[in-house]
């Protein structure tokens, strides 16, 4: 039972990442009708916001300690981050918490990238076929990843979990179990909570604000909203920026769990499209539900008992379930009639 609970928790934290990426992807498809194959690249760019922030915050001063020698006879170099020199202990905390602090850099950066992407390229393809949209956004994804590769190289950049959050939380105690029967890493719990917070925030924004109401109206009937004198294009541009921010912050917080490299976007792209299709094209709740569902299934399929019965099932379970769901429910779990069916 505890094994299943632990695996369920693991599935939820994986599912959180899938849901966040799929949510942004669905947001763009639902509002603009664009199948954005560059969405995975936005997740990757978010990761590199964290990498860039850490690079900047750990720029060091090098001093030489003549009293200590290396085995090859030169004086030992003492390296201290500049922020630590400037701000003392507070600087050290900033370095330690560089990942969550880098959200401050990631949000405006990703918003700007999203808006620039939509205004500069995507808007010219609104009235084109989905095949052309896929080609151009896939091309854009390749360009973005090659730009990142040119600046950062091809190797992954591990990002540290803050020291205080490197241990595991004793969740079993909360459930009345013996101490240390069911533990789970703090950062993964934080990532799950963060995913839920962002998902909740996006839904609240769309549901409870005037801006969100207009966007939802535009998603239902773009022309009518336009005829009412509302500049729906401008709002959709902001929605594209919002989708980029969602993908970006998902990437930032994921960096301690998976060291990012330039190819990370492509690794997540196929998976996130499977999530969107299983959830139902254009359905925001569908994307979230499918994200968590597939995350949990993938995690449970990795259990020793299941792997010993069907070796390799953990690698294919997501695609297997996607096939079954689409055979039974061709529009996905929560898909609407008429979307991508013409």
């Amino acid at each position, binding site marked *: 039972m505890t094994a299943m609970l632990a695996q369920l928790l693991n599935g939820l934290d994986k599912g959180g990442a899938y849901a966040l990426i799929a949510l942004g992807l669905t947001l763009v498809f639902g509002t603009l009708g664009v199948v954005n194959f560059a969405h995975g690249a936005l997740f990757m760019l978010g990761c590199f916001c964290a990498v860039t922030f850490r690079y900047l915050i750990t720029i060091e001063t090098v001093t030489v300690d003549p009293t200590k020698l*290396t085995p090859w006879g030169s004086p030992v170099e003492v390296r201290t981050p500049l922020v630590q020199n400037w701000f003392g202990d507070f600087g050290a905390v900033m370095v330690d918490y560089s990942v969550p602090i880098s959200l401050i850099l990631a949000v405006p950066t990703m918003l700007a990238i999203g808006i620039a992407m939509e205004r500069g390229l995507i808007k010219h393809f609104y009235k084109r076929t989905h095949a052309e949209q896929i080609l151009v956004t896939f091309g854009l994804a390749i360009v973005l990843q090659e730009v990142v590769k040119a600046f950062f190289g091809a190797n992954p950049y591990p990002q540290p979990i803050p020291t205080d959050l490197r241990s595991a939380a004793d969740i079993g105690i909360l459930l009345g179990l013996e101490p240390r029967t069911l533990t*789970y890493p703090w*950062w*993964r719990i934080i990532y799950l909570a963060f995913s839920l917070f962002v998902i909740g925030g996006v839904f609240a924004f769309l549901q409870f604000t005037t801006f969100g109401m207009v966007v939802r109206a535009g998603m239902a009937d773009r022309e009518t909203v336009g005829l009412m004198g509302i500049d729906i294009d401008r709002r959709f541009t902001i929605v594209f920026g919002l989708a980029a921010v969602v993908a970006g912050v998902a990437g930032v917080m994921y960096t301690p769990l998976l060291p990012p490299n330039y190819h990370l976007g492509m690794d997540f792209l196929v998976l996130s499209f499977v999530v969107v299709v299983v959830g139902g094209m254009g359905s925001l709740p569908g994307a979230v539900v499918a994200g968590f569902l597939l995350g949990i299934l*993938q995690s449970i399929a990795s259990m020793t008992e299941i792997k010993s019965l069907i070796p390799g099932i953990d690698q294919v379970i997501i695609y297997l379930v996607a096939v079954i769901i689409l055979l039974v429910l061709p529009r996905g779990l929560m898909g609407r009639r008429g979307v991508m069916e013409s």
Partner: protein
Amino acid sequence: MTKFHMNRRTLIKKAGLGAAALSTPYFFTKGAWADSFCNNPDTVGKIIFGFNVPQTGSYAEEGLEQLSGYKLAIKHLNGEGDGGLLNTFSPKTLKGNGVLGRKVEYVTGDTQTNTDAARDGARRMIERDGVIMVTGCVTTGEAVAQQSLCQEMGVIYMSGLTHGNETTGKDKRRYGFRHYFNAHQTGIAIAPILEREYGKERRAYHITADYNWGWSQEASMKAATEALGWETVAAIRTPLGLGDFSQYLTPVAHSGADILIINHYGHDMVNSLPQAVQFGLRERMANDKQFEIIVPMFSELMAVGAGDAVKGIIGTQNWNWQLDDAGSQAFTKSYGEEYGVPPSQSAHTGYVQALLYADAVERAGTFYPPEVIKALEGFEFDGMGNGPTLYRAEDHQCMKEVLVVRGNENPSSRFDVLNLIGKTPREEATYDPSIFEGELGPYEPNQC
């Protein structure tokens, strides 16, 4: 009747003619070698070594270190720098004037931590760049692929960091040579230490990289630990380069195991070990024992990358810069002066392999591969940092001592990450080569 008459002058003339006649076949044979092997430096016009290592991908850091070792070896071979291990290597043949009196050049390649890319890179070096020897790798897949190709093309391959049993086991080749130790030797070396530290009644859970090195490492560790009386609870395979291993680590705590053996290397281990620690495994009690984690094969780069998670973890190593023998100290000094950091075992392996090939050519007096191979087979040497070492003729595996290390609890610097806790002598680390299948194959080279 003619009277036989020979004076001193006639005798000298006839002896001279006879010697010339007798040496004629050798003269032509020796000349014939010039055109009968791949990338003969006399034909190519240069002596070029090919350094084919992962510069990107899961094992890039190890690969780049290895490349640094190779470059330093070229410097020392060509008489630049302080000479490094040329000063301690015995028997002493290399003089620091290149190889057979000619300077050595090199080309580099990126295997991308990928078997196909490694093979393609090696082929390109042989066909386009004209290398006389290919060396380097950080996975057993890369090693096996390259040495198989080199056997086909008649070019000697000096493997880099390959630990799987296959390289000098079932996939051994006449043209392939390994200085690095292997998974079987890790099992031999680590078992007594594990018994001493953790006892005889343990239940082990393996997490294994799903490729030939991982399988090999897992099999050797299972054999070694089960011989101690340990029980293997489960062995789970993980894709190479996965990054997030949480889905495979989550079941460990509930499996009834009290030991986790991580058969990962490079970035995989740098990710999986800290993740295992974050899951609270080391703080657990299981079967009334403290839960422990073992990483059978360690490197300093991995230990640095894994940070605090490595403290107290036991594993094995091929070489460590903190060894106090003359060879280790000479290499650490040369490398430190060159690059400003102490060398890793990957750098050491690369450096030593380049020197061993050059030395064999020097002793053979030719680049003709069969002669160089014969010079390496059964070669006894010392002064390279691993104590007296034998390049065993039967499988081309170096027989030398194996180090058992533990993650340093109180490091004095960011490089002081591993403490030596045991040294298995060469005699104990030596095993019967016939336990692994495979044939070395012929000496005679094919044309490339």
